[in-house]
């Protein structure tokens, strides 16, 4: 249920810009594997306590990594299958660097190019 804390950050950001923002796209990076059902429930509950309305849609962005040793671009299909490791990455996506390796050269020094975790695209007046 730590999705609740992330949903709060989305609502607070929208609240801070409520005079200008009219549409928001919440983007879930697949690396963090946010539970969409829990997040959406939390978002609705928190927004119900606010006095502004914003059109919100949720989209997903696939995680993409670039090895900083050999330059290989890779994705989560070549990542961990271990449930505990997945759970740890869910809580702290940077832990991907502990559990994942470049499929080509096996280095752990890679960059998360896309799809890390939560981000927000806003349409503003």
């Amino acid at each position: 249920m730590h999705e609740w804390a992330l949903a709060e950050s989305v609502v607070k950001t929208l609240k801070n810009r409520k005079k200008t923002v009219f549409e928001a796209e919440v983007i879930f990076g697949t690396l963090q594997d946010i539970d969409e059902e829990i997040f959406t429930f939390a978002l609705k509950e928190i927004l119900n306590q606010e006095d502004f309305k914003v059109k919100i849609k949720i989209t997903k962005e696939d995680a993409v990594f670039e090895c900083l040793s050999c330059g290989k671009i890779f994705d989560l299909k070549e990542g961990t299958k271990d449930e505990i490791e997945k759970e740890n990455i869910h809580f702290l996506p940077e832990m991907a660097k502990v559990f994942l390796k470049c499929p080509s050269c096996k280095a752990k020094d890679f960059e998360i190019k896309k799809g890390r975790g939560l981000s927000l695209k806003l349409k503003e007046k």
Partner: protein
Amino acid sequence: MNIIDPRPSVISQRFSQVKNIIAVTGFKGGVGKSGVSCALALALTEKGFKTGLFDLDFSGASDHLILGSGKVFPREEKGLLPPYVHGIKFMTASYFSSDKAIALRGSSVSSAIKELFTVTIWGELDYLIFDMPPGVGDAAFEVMNLIPSAIILPVQTPCSLSAKVMERSLEIYKEGKFKVLKTVQNMAVSKEKGFYHQIFYDKKWPKAAGKADKLIKTSFYADTFGLAGKLVKESSL
């Protein structure tokens, strides 16, 4: 369309019920920041204060080993609730690393700190101790940007090199308008003036690591207990 990281918007709220945040900082590795941080958290707890400890030294995380925290894990409830370890609310990235090495580049350190600042629910605390990594790097800049109320408590050893490196680095905090306390001299071998507090070298301390019942019987802990008393006076609690 602007792409925004929403996490920083709630960070000040997460610390709103924390009365004092003390960032234990040293500018060379091995000066004993983690030992001082853990002993300070234990001492403040013993004095009856609600205390938290956050190990921000991700790559050198050791507070869980010093405290012997065992297999505790944060509980999920509208965020992550840090587990109690010897009465201290304790957060560390080592919960999520399966005890493997955490090697992160600077941008990842910043993002990981923001994530844990966003999702950790500290609740009411009298004192929250940050165990900072050595030097003024990404973790320090994140703390400076996100937690401007943090009080900087520098730690050095009698080694003149550690003192010189620290003098330079403290300027950065002072320029940032942080409250910077006088230095704690750790591993002291003789009484000297000019320090906020001295913690004398205690060969029993490293051997007691991992066993809180033994840690609190060391002279290192007794000295740190004195430091805790000064900090309490300083913060008027």
